[in-house]
């Protein structure tokens, strides 16, 4: 070794971190696909999402990284496991995909991969010198600029998305409510106990 440890540059450190996070994300994504146990898949997905969040951090997109953790790791993933717990009959339900499904998935995945590689290689990303030439306020993604963009230039798409979410929520609440009323009518006849009435009032 001719170089001493003191010669390590910041680019080296960022590079190691890039390979570390990228490796975590990639490896756990492969494990996710190969695993047959749904809950283990969810755990692999957790590591994939965490690795991608780390990559966002490397890009100074801290807000995006935190959103990634809150929405996907903290929200969606928990709901997936919650759904599995509510619906699966055996504790360790397994996926048994048929041969057709495997072939179909591999084909679709291959097409997606080719498309992504083509898209990445055809795009011209700004070089290091070009980014360094930008004024400091233009580099990175500060939270206040993101907020102003969301509530300024992109207000309409933002509001449409929120209305869509509201509609989904109302629909889900309506479906759940209708089913419950039906089931209580059929199950508890006139002889409904005080306790169950109270329990219903609470829920």
């Amino acid at each position: 070794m001719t170089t001493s440890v003191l010669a390590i540059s910041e680019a080296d450190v960022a590079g190691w971190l890039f390979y570390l996070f990228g490796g975590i994300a990639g490896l756990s994504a492969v494990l996710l696909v190969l695993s047959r146990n749904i809950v283990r898949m969810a755990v692999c997905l957790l590591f994939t999402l965490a690795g991608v969040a780390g990559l966002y951090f490397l890009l100074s997109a801290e807000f995006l990284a935190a959103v990634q953790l809150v929405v996907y790791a903290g929200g969606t993933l928990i709901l997936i496991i919650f759904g599995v717990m509510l619906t699966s009959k055996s504790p360790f339900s397994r996926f048994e995909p048929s041969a057709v499904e495997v072939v179909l998935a591999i084909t679709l995945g291959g097409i997606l991969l080719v498309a992504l590689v083509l898209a990445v290689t055809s795009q011209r990303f700004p070089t290091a010198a070009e980014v360094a030439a930008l004024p400091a306020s233009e580099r990175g993604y500060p939270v206040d600029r993101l907020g102003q963009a969301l509530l300024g230039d992109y207000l309409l798409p933002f509001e449409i998305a929120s209305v869509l979410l509201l509609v989904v929520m109302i629909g889900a609440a309506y479906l759940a409510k209708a089913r419950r009323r039906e089931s209580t009518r059929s199950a508890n006849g006139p002889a409904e106990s005080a306790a169950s009435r109270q329990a219903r009032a609470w829920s």
Partner: protein
Amino acid sequence: MSGLLYMLLPMSPLAQASPTVMERVLFGDAASPFQYLLYSVAIIAMVFLPLAMLIAMFSIWWERKVAGHIQSRLGPNRVGPIGLLQSLADGIKLILKEDLVPKDADNLLFRLAPYLAFAPAFAAFVALPFGPNFTYEPRLNVGVFWVLAILSVEVMGVILAGWASNNKWSVYGAMREACQMVSYEIPLGISIIVGIMAAGTLNMVALGHLQGGGIHTWLIYRNPFTLIAFFVFFIASLASNKRAPFDLPESESELVAGFHTEYSGLRFSFFFFAEYAAMFVVGGIQAALFLGGWNDPFGAIGYLYPEALRDFEAGGSPLPLIGLNILGAGMFVIKCMGIVFLQMWIRWTLPRPRIDQVLYACVKVLLPIACVLLLGAALWQLLVPEMAGVPWVKYHPWNWNDWKEQGARGAFVTQIILTIVGVSLFGATSMWAAYNLFSSRRNLKQRLTDPDPIDKAPANLAAASH
């Protein structure tokens, strides 16, 4: 591949961020990246990990003491002075225990879950502002949100533990944790936004600087809505931390021990380290966001800090800066521990509701309150002009004329009134607690510091027991 990599680099925080004051104090102005790397690893391994462990061990001892006193007994008092080494003794015992894994459990996930629960609680420490410079990453612009995000990942460990145990009680505990966490995150997030709107930043260090002008500039007293939002946040944080009265995931009376029924030995203790570290972190968010962070109630640290920083920048000694930081860290830890104490007090006072009542309290009580607070705080921002900028630097926080000139009279009056209300509430509560702690109405009149209980029992009690 390497071409792509070098495109990423100029944007990475490592490449563009200037060194923090702490790093400059330690290494001077021209340090190599290797020194920074070493510094990061050393801070995490030698400061944060022992700190998290120490906080957890101390809090476990303290919780048992608090529980004892609330239930008119003494709590641990045999190992070490006033039982202080009890947690250490328990830890040694837990290390020596056999590490059991149930035969039908999902072996891998069962072993992984405790670490998944502990790691996030520990990772949240990097953003906590122990002082203006005693913050591991002061450049993290989304500090509050980052801590919230990392705490929401902690649930994953608990859910996995319950699921992988392959035990009905554990799965029930895990399911309760999942629905509790997912629903209480909403009022939690909204009440944080109320505070953030008053401050205008998510960076925890910037939050601390904003609240440096004395107790009336703390965000909790900024407007009536932040005062209520603090309590909403506190209640929601109890639920998301699975602390009583919302400790449904491990309710002993129904679920044996909930998600950790099957755990033994060191893995079991990891869940408790995670829980107490998370309690401290949640206290840290409340201290940093609402209770002034590292600042003292008189604003002395905020007053002295800019001068100390200027001296250091001009090539002076870093000692005043370090002194202020140590003072600030003391204030911050006191505030966090106060919140932790409040959590313990509530745990041993209130009974546990049913799970449907817990969810009712979230969706039909806390959530509407939080939404009203959000709306009210937004209107307040619009209607009442406030002082902008860092106190002492931009304006004199105690000088009425300064506020009058900037047209912030309403804000000053509100903040003073809210401070008086808040301080008297706090004073009354502490007096009440102190009265009950030292009240002579108790039969077994023992103090927290009494090492030798039996011999000192009052004579009438000794007579009554014969």
